[in-house]
């Protein structure tokens, strides 16, 4: 305990404004465990600049749209998205690199739960924002529809993409065909995309993320990147069976 207090004191002294002992504004009984598991008990400041946008009630527990919006928060290195009460908590771990630190995606929700964005800035500090989403339940333990579609193997890892450019920025929206099975439905092993990156024409990553089972089947993502002109972007990645994703997205 002494050690923790000392560490907190040091963090306070260095960061000044960071409030290490922030109570969880979402009042979730899981939060202390999650803070230990994912942040190694590092202090977290709940910050109004981090917004997680999601419907109050999930109409479809298999497809809950989520947007993480970061307003005026400089130097974001990492955005970790978790859902407290999902049987698999981690949703994605995003490194924006050249992209805007906000993103949109869809998840499966097993029951009512906070959805949180834990944001790490260049100085190593953690900030957080989140929202409660009510849900009827069952999103994670049902088989994917792709599971019973006879042609899923032919469509696997196909990418549909669209790009909107304004000269300065481009918004990239992707859909990747994948069952994203959680391994929690009886007799169906986990099968999900685990790595994804957008790379430029030289092969340098512009953004990258690790993805996990709770993302919806045929996951959809929106990212904001600097406009690269007429050069095609390339989406690369793979799932936990080693099946590759590799597609060009033409502007």
């Amino acid at each position: 305990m002494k050690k923790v207090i000392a560490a907190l004191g040091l963090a306070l002294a260095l960061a000044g404004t960071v409030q290490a002992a922030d109570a969880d504004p979402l009042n979730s009984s899981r939060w202390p465990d999650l803070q230990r598991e994912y942040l190694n008990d590092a202090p977290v400041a709940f910050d109004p600049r981090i917004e997680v946008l999601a419907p109050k009630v999930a109409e479809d527990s298999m497809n809950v749209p989520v947007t993480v919006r970061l307003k005026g928060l400089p130097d974001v290195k990492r955005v970790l998205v978790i859902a407290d009460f999902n049987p698999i908590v981690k949703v994605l771990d995003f490194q924006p690199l050249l992209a805007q630190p906000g993103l949109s995606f869809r998840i499966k929700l097993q029951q009512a739960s906070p959805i949180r964005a834990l944001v790490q800035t260049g100085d190593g500090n953690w900030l957080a924002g989140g929202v409660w989403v009510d849900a009827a339940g069952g999103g994670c333990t049902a088989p994917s529809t792709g599971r019973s579609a006879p042609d899923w193997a032919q469509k696997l890892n196909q990418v549909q993409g669209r790009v909107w450019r304004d000269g300065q920025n481009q918004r990239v929206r992707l859909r990747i065909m994948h069952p994203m099975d959680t391994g929690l439905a009886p007799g169906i092993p986990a099968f999900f995309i685990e790595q994804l990156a957008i790379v430029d024409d030289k092969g340098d990553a512009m953004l990258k993320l690790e993805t996990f089972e709770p993302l919806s089947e045929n996951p959809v993502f929106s990212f904001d990147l600097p406009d690269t002109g007429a050069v095609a972007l390339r989406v690369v990645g793979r799932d936990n069976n080693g099946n590759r994703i590799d597609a060009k997205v033409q502007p």
Partner: protein
Amino acid sequence: MKGLRNSTLSSLLVAAFAAMAAPQVMAGVTDRDIENDAKTTGDVLSWGMGTEGQRYSPLDKINVGNVKNLVPVWSFSFGGEKQRGQESQPLVVNGKMFVTGSYSRLYALDAKTGAKLWQYEHRLPDGIMPCCDVVNRGAAVYDNLVIFSTLDAQLVALDQNTGKVVWKEKIDDYQAGYSNTAAPIIAKGLILTGVSGGEFGIVGRVEARDAKTGKMVWSRPTVEGHMGYKFDAAGNKTENGISGTTNATWQGDLWKTGGAATWLGGSYDAKTGLAYFGTGNPAPWNSHLRPGDNLYSCATVAIDVATGQIKWHFQGTPNDGWDYDGVNEFVTFDMNGKRMGGKADRNGFFYVLDANTGKFERGFPFVKKITWAKGLDAAGKPIFDPANRPGDPSKGADGKKGEVVFSAPSFLGGKNQMPMAYSPDTGLFYVPANEWGMEIWNEPITYKKGAAYLGAGFTIKTIDDKYIGALRAVDPKTGKIVWEVTNNAPLWGGVMTTKGGLVFWGTPEGFLKAADAKTGKEVWSFQTGTGVVAPPITWEQDGEQYIGVAAGWGGAVPLWGGDVAKKVNYLNQGGSMWVFKLHK
């Protein structure tokens, strides 16, 4: 894949995710470790307990005198509803056991306690076409990787510590009938694999990939007329010569869908530098459609690992008309100061060949009834009995069905996929043999992609009411059967022998058995609760000798059945790993 090279993609992914890669903990498995596998007792690094395939262990802590004290240490369930044939030979590395299960699953276990470390379940498409059950025969290990092939014809390399996929390569298109069930073997940093799908008119081949990266190094077709290829470090493909001479032993263009699947994988002998792959039946089964020897079907092909060229071949059944699919393992051993190889062929003959040149030394039956050939000539070629080849359907009364003949062995063979063992102590091979025959007839057939390509009908018959299976001790110097232990159901598991003077094998009735290697006297048995169709292994850990075997009834026998069904249709399925040691 938008025409982009895989190699480029792999490097992009590696670069993008380099920071996330887990650090390597333990020294990896080397070529040297693998070449010494048969001599080192603390591990089992390859299918065959040494790439030579002798399945002999120099361990003698468990021996004829004390084997009665052998008791189970742990049993592990493969879980799920996927209880089908378990034909896997486990590997043991640094105290970890790697064993594959039916439906392309792989388990990492603590070898001493049976505690599960991780499991990998490969997602299979609905349309896979394995001919003979959804089995897998085991993995290969190299560096920090454990590598196995899948029913949808892919090769997956996993990190031994985490079970995460490190690389994955597609061997071929499962929709064209390709699949893969054999354990890969490692030779000089290359991972060698064959292909399955001989019932679908595929083309057999052997491929070598860089075991660390999965990048292709060479490919060698096992059907005459097809081009072999080499690949440079950048993945550029160059021609490496046609296998054989086009149309020399195949007329017309049937060689284009010629079969000769290398579905049981191969063996490798560091002393000769050669990999030995058995090849399956030519396609279709109807031999009247393809006059000629039909190279390299029903043969053993010796490939120089360094060049990807065929150095020699020996064909057991030219112009096969009985599905005497000659994939059976070629086990190298020393005899009279020479490096030789032994093969118990599906066609019922045991062949002893010079491992360097393929020169025929001796051949003799290891089953009691052979009808298709009257014997072997001085060069080892069969002396056919024309009356016992299934008739030409075009000469039949209605042109739709040829004359029916009775043939022995049956198409499931005098020996099938279950590997034999060789003991340098006794100088004997221990062959899991089966005595059965079949009625077989030919029908017209044309090739259609992804469809069964047989042109034959058949039904299996028993020969002796009392038994089908017979574990036989065979002397390669004399051709004599020194002893045998018969078994009611057909034998379908492999054999292992030890310096402790023991031979271990499993039966479909569920017993793992041990016999005195000299006399064949049964000295121990244990009921595993389901049929054993996998080869046993042994290793040493913390001063104690362990015996392990996978259990789970299945394989080709229950699928083909026939007259044999009454000996096996009451057997229950399962899926588990059993480990034994001496109680104190």
